[in-house]
């Protein structure tokens, strides 16, 4: 299986009374809470952590896009990915992703992803989320009733921009361009970089991923227990559509804290976990359901059927209602997997097999976890957990993984020596 290291880049210094004094971590979080001098260190720590994860042998490092968000400091994940393209060598770069409807013209995404793919020698995974209501409809002012139509059209345009050899005119419902001809073009051109779709539990998204042969990723913060119904819904739908159960069709996000013992893990990870589930998910409910964001078909399924339970747990509204914020409930709920290496191995194997997920995206930094603790968690996982779970799903081929240039064909990137640079 693939073990991928995911960073959300949370602001780590939200005050203790944040939830009492502020209505929301997202959309209208107050600017006075943001200290750019502190953020300088946060960004650099976070990028160190991503680079360290790559050194430790994770299959991919993952970044994502959020706006006006106190737990996600990457309005442009592409900036981070381009830096990682230079500072890592073999690790896949999973940009999870660019919310297509937010870019005007959407060919900007085709261009920037092609740049990252070229710089990295073909290591890009191209994630195309619709984007959360808070990011898209509120922070970016997109019309919720038009968002999905714009998203699908932008997807068609980006894909065609990657694949079409001749300059072409695109006459869409929302996008009109006379001359589409992106430079650069992605290295992965057979036929294009792997496309992964982070989504909620909507049946339409599952069907679309199956039809397009994309990876479906369920990026929940609520762990494998809450994610089980959604992933079962996904696999049931794949079965109905006649698709195999190749676990690499799917990705899943899981928080983990590993240490020498369970008690040590609790000692180390309780504060950052409670910081994340308390402060970082403190989102005002008024930003959860812009009208038209959820399709009527999904609403109908939500009200009518059992599948719906799956779809429902994935809706932003119900996510907000889960809300355990103390460590006991966080661990009991499976939001964060905690334990000694052996205990974590057992749970990871259980998560992967019960959800049938070949791409496990791990959050080993969360909340206000320090760089030292993050590196410790990352090293413990890499050295003591990874070797005991890598064998899973060996019988399946991952057809959705980047195909980089052969090593001998890739540019030599000089080693980075910041101390020397500073001394000169």
């Amino acid at each position, binding site marked *: 299986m693939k073990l991928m290291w995911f960073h959300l880049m949370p602001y780590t210094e939200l005050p203790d009374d944040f939830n009492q004094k502020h209505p929301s971590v997202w959309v209208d979080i107050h600017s006075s809470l943001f200290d750019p001098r502190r953020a300088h260190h946060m960004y650099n720590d976070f990028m160190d952590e991503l680079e360290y994860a790559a050194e430790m042998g994770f299959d991919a490092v993952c970044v994502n896009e959020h706006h006006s968000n106190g737990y996600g400091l990457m309005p442009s994940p592409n900036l981070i990915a381009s830096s990682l393209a230079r500072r890592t060598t073999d690790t896949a770069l999973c940009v999870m992703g660019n919310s297509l409807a937010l870019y005007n013209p959407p060919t900007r995404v085709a261009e920037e992803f092609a740049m990252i793919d070229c710089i990295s020698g073909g290591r890009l995974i191209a994630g195309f989320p619709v984007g959360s209501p808070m990011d898209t*409809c*509120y922070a970016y*002012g997109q*019309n*919720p*009733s*038009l968002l999905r139509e714009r998203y699908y059209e932008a997807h068609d345009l980006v894909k065609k921009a990657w694949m079409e050899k001749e300059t072409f005119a695109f006459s869409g*419902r*929302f996008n009109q361009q006379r001359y589409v001809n992106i430079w650069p073009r992605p290295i992965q051109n057979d036929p294009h970089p792997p496309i992964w779709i982070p989504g909620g539990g909507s049946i339409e998204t599952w069907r679309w991923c199956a039809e397009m042969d994309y990876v479906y990723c369920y990026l929940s913060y609520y762990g494998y227990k809450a994610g089980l119904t959604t992933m079962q819904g996904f696999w049931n739908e794949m079965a109905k559509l006649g698709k195999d159960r190749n676990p690499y069709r799917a990705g899943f996000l899981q928080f983990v804290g590993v240490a020498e013992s369970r008690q040590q893990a609790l000692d180390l990870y309780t504060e950052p976990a409670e910081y994340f589930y308390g402060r970082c998910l403190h989102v*005002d*409910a*008024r*930003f959860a359901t*812009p*009208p*038209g964001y959820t399709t*009527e078909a999904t*609403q*109908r399924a939500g*009200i*009518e059927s059992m599948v719906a339970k799956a779809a429902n747990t994935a809706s932003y509204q119900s996510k907000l209602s889960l809300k355990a914020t103390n460590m006991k409930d966080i661990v009991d709920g499976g939001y964060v997997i905690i334990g000694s290496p052996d205990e974590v191995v057992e749970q990871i194997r259980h998560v992967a097999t019960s959800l049938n997920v070949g791409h496990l995206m791990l959050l080993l930094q969360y909340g206000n976890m320090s760089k030292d603790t993050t590196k410790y968690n990352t090293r413990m996982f890499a050295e003591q957990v990874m070797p005991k779970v890598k064998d899973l799903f060996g019988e399946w081929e991952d057809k959705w993984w980047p195909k980089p240039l052969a090593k001998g064909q890739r540019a030599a990137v000089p080693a980075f020596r910041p101390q020397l640079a500073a001394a000169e």
Partner: protein
Amino acid sequence: MSELKAATVEVNGFPCRVWTKGSGPKLGFLAGLGGLPRWLPFLDKLAETRTVIVPSLPGYPGATGHTELDTHLDWVLAVRQLIDKAGLAGVDLIGASVGGAFAAEMAAIFPGHVRKLVLIAPFGLFDDKEPATDPWAQRKENVAGLMCADGAKWNALVAAPEGANSVEWPIEMGRAFEAAARAFWPLGNTRLEKRLGLIAAPTLILWGDRDAVLPPSYAKKFAAGINGSTRIETVAEAGHLAYLDQPDAVARAILAHFG
């Protein structure tokens, strides 16, 4: 007063409900946020002396087809077709809230289509010094109080009637908000200001004194922009949907204006 009659007309191939009641000269009503899930006492008041014709805009209760409308021009032309097909061309027109913005567009762009005009707290403008409230970013429990001075009036409007389909009813109520968002997201500003000067119809502007969505001061901006004669009347003890809070007072003011 005649019985309530329901008919359906097609706009862009989608059905739109048209209600008719009363006798006498025709008038049209374009409803506000939430549309009309049910007939109202306010409309009965008007129907005592007038033939009241109430078309549902695309996406509001009784109508679909909002999903085809991508631009403001699409919306304006859909409303124009609806006005024509409902037999409202050239008669008195009332528009409230989101419906008010479209009534103003009709009077501005198709001046022959509107005899006299009433605007009840219409959408269409935005003043960043006095920003309108975001009706699409509200916790559920706050919506009723935002729409009406007396939240119970809003709750009565949207409550599922006995025998209503428990799946479809909430979806239909939500669709009305989506239709409004589709046309007016994110600020309610359709740059109507540019076209107000084209309105020549005598216009009565009604505003609830407790409108929590659009500041009552917006009435002056409409009055200043409109070219025809205008009069502003404040409706006491009324919120954004003044016709729900004060049906008698609003109907009286309208009938006096239409003469």
